[in-house]
């Protein structure tokens, strides 16, 4: 609390520090005091960002490893892997993953990647790191709440991790946790204590996201430095802003849905349950509607996919402009399209529910609104391509991953147009086509955005560079591997191969894909190994990477590179820099780049400036 009082709101204290200096010593004492307050219960947004990133990386390893395990089942259904029994015990008797374990792995893979890695790990990391640095603030609006946000995420992580080790296993009804499977403990072993822990963990996670989101919004709107008008903000900040707005408005609705689900599980209510038989016995619940849950879930669930992709879009916009040495093409169109995506995010949820018996007339509206998303998405893609068009491109690892992002976003986005049409969706629903679509457009793309961000801002986080050779190997294996894994799944889906099945070799129609599944699983293992190499590169470079010698290694215009190489809490010694121009003055007036802190020249003033 004392940190918060010193650094933030309480201007009088800061004023005292600025005016007298002895007040300042006092302030330093608070911040750099001990290991615990500096590295563990830190209120410095940069440290919290690193905490989110490292926790996210650990979760990503777990989540990706789970996908390797279930891909072993899908690719090698007849092969026995005795080592599986030694790590999974009775969940993999005789070296074969049991059906229960398979569903648990699939469910946890989805939950971990969607929420813990690509929500908390992505926007938690980069919103925390970049918002104060790029808008010119000392820290977040409330550093204490920001710290709480991480520790709620940490508690959610602990509960979810615990659920992996309970006797009846973790939740296994899919990452969407649809009732009645998730509402009735007797429905499956994964619906017992594992499901309760899942709901508890997710409730803590929602609290973490709300505390974080509140801070991001109020920091962006209130704490920008002098001259940093909204239209002078880098696109990263705009994307984090829309992400936070989406989160703050949609996560509470998810929580409502979970609360009703908890009541159905433990208080005998019938919000989602009706006319059910479990093990031959009729349940007393009546009058509930399982579809109700789907409405509440997807009202969050659809904005959630934009919560995942918008930060990646923002970072990619920034990195493309920096490394093409060109201004971003269509800045306002970029902001406008993100705004349009944020609005449409709330109006399309029922396209996940075309086959639930949704009124086809109503469905037609959701088809229209869904297809409308193609417009802002296409504007963004066009602008990214025109930004690098004829640019003086530097192929840094961050740049490669950004270009990779644009590629996967296009290929994954195009299949979205198929699925958004209810008539095609009826055929493709719950097939591998859907798996391929959302893994490419949301999973792989968001990962590419994350990697781009990590490679680009690693020097700011740790004052060192990542190893370049390993970075390039990582990029090419990941890009080629991602396409090799997910491209063939489109064909499987078009042939009607359903998702979430344990074994396809019993089906005459899907036997033909045996070799393809085999191939996909092998690529998965190779790509997973490449990610472990990245993790090694990451941790090795924190301690042994090449050191930064200048404060602005990428010759970038934005404010974070005006801080010292290893900024302390408060970011800028002395004054916060003032901003005079937009963040994309690259290759202008014969200069390679002009930082935002450089005042407009008389010529620029005459031209109206930016």
């Amino acid at each position, binding site marked *: 609390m004392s940190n918060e009082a010193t650094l933030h709101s309480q201007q009088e204290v800061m004023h005292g520090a600025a005016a007298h200096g002895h007040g300042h010593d006092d302030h330093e004492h608070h911040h750099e005091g001990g290991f615990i307050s500096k590295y563990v219960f830190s209120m410095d947004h940069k440290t919290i960002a690193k905490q989110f990133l490292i926790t996210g990386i650990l979760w990503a390893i777990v989540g990706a490893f789970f996908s390797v395990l279930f891909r072993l089942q899908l690719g090698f259904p007849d092969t026995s892997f005795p080592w599986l029994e030694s790590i999974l015990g009775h969940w993999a008797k005789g070296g074969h993953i049991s059906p229960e374990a398979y569903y648990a792995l699939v469910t946890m893979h989805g939950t971990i990647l969607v929420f813990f890695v690509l929500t908390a790990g992505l926007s938690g990391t980069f919103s925390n790191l970049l918002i104060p640095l790029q808008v010119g603030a000392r820290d977040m609006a409330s550093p204490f709440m920001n710290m709480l946000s991480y520790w709620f995420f940490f508690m959610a992580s602990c509960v979810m991790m615990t659920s992996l080790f309970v006797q009846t296993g973790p939740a296994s009804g899919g990452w969407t946790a649809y009732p009645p499977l998730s509402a009735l403990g007797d429905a499956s072993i994964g619906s017992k204590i594992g499901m309760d822990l899942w709901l508890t963990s997710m409730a803590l996670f929602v609290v973490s996201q709300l505390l974080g989101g509140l801070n991001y919004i109020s920091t962006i709107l209130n704490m920008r430095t002098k001259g940093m008008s909204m239209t002078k903000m880098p696109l990263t900040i705009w994307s984090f802003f829309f992400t936070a707005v989406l989160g703050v408005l949609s996560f509470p609705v998810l929580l*409502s849905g979970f609360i009703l689900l908890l009541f159905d599980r433990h208080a005998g209510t019938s919000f989602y349950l009706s006319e059910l038989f479990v093990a031959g016995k009729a349940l007393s619940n009546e009058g509930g509607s399982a579809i109700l849950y789907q409405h509440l879930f997807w009202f969050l669930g659809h904005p959630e996919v934009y919560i995942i992709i918008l930060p990646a879009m923002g970072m990619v916009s920034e990195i493309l402009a920096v490394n093409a040495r060109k201004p971003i093409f269509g800045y306002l169109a970029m902001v406008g399209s993100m705004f349009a995506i944020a609005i449409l995010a709330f109006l399309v949820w029922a396209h996940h529910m075309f086959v639930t018996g949704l009124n086809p007339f109503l469905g037609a509206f959701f088809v229209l609104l869904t297809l409308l998303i193609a417009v802002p998405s296409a504007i963004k893609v066009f602008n990214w391509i025109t930004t690098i068009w004829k640019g003086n491109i530097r192929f840094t690892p961050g740049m490669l991953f950004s270009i990779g992002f644009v590629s996967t976003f296009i290929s994954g986005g195009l299949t979205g147009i198929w699925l958004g049409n209810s008539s095609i969706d009826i055929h493709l629903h719950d097939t591998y086509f859907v798996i391929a679509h959302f893994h490419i457009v949301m999973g792989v793309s968001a990962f590419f955005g994350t990697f781009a961000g990590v490679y680009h801002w690693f020097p700011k986080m740790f004052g060192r560079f990542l190893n370049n050779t390993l970075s390039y190997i990582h990029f090419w294996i990941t890009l080629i591997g991602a396409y090799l894994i997910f491209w063939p799944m489109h064909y499987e889906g078009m042939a009607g191969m359903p998702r979430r099945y344990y074994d396809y070799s019993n089906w005459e129609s899907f036997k033909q894909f045996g070799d393809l599944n085999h191939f996909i699983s092998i690529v998965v293992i190779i790509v997973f190994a490449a990610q472990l190499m990245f993790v090694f590169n990451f941790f090795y470079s924190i301690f042994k990477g090449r050191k930064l010698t200048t404060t602005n290694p990428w010759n970038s215009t934005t404010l974070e590179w005006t801080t010292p190489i290893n900024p302390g809490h408060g970011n800028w010694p002395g004054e916060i820099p003032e901003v005079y121009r937009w963040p994309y003055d690259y290759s202008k007036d014969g200069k390679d780049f002009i930082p935002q802190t450089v005042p407009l020249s008389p010529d620029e003033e005459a031209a109206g400036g930016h």
Partner: protein
Amino acid sequence: MQAMSVQRNKIHPHKYSLWIAMGSITMMFIGFTSAYVVKRAQANWFTFQLPVIFWISTAIILSSSFTVQMAVKQFKNRHMQRYKQLITLTAVLGVAFAVCQWIGFMQMNAMGLPLNGPASVSFIYVIVSVHLLHVLGGVVALLIMFGRAFRTRIRTYSPVPIEVAATYWHFVDALWIYLLIFLSIAR
């Protein structure tokens, strides 16, 4: 290292965060009431009268909004004695509100409308108790204010904490009015 300059703020960040938080809480209740509307449109919707005591609790929480507003005024005028009395009174009214809601639950139960009854009944229990949790959160905030007012070592003259608490208190009050009107009309 040089001394750091002042952070610019257009509006106090805690007040601003509170407004966003209130938007977020509102979304949660919009979630509940939308679920209620969707469920109500389906077959076999069971209707019943809300317990009268919910109207008494409404009067209580309305009056507590006045007391908390007067507390803010007394704080700004440095009438600390009056201020302490008023936030105590507000917290007591908050607890009284909670008791009334609880009695309402007991009455519904006695009328043969238990929690695990028809969905329309279950909704009342869930919505009212989630709202009640938010009121109790406000009571905790007032207790913290109360503790601060008796602190002798550190005295604070910033009205921001009590203003934040008061705004939140008005918010849960208004939220209850909305819920009561909603639940009375959309029966």
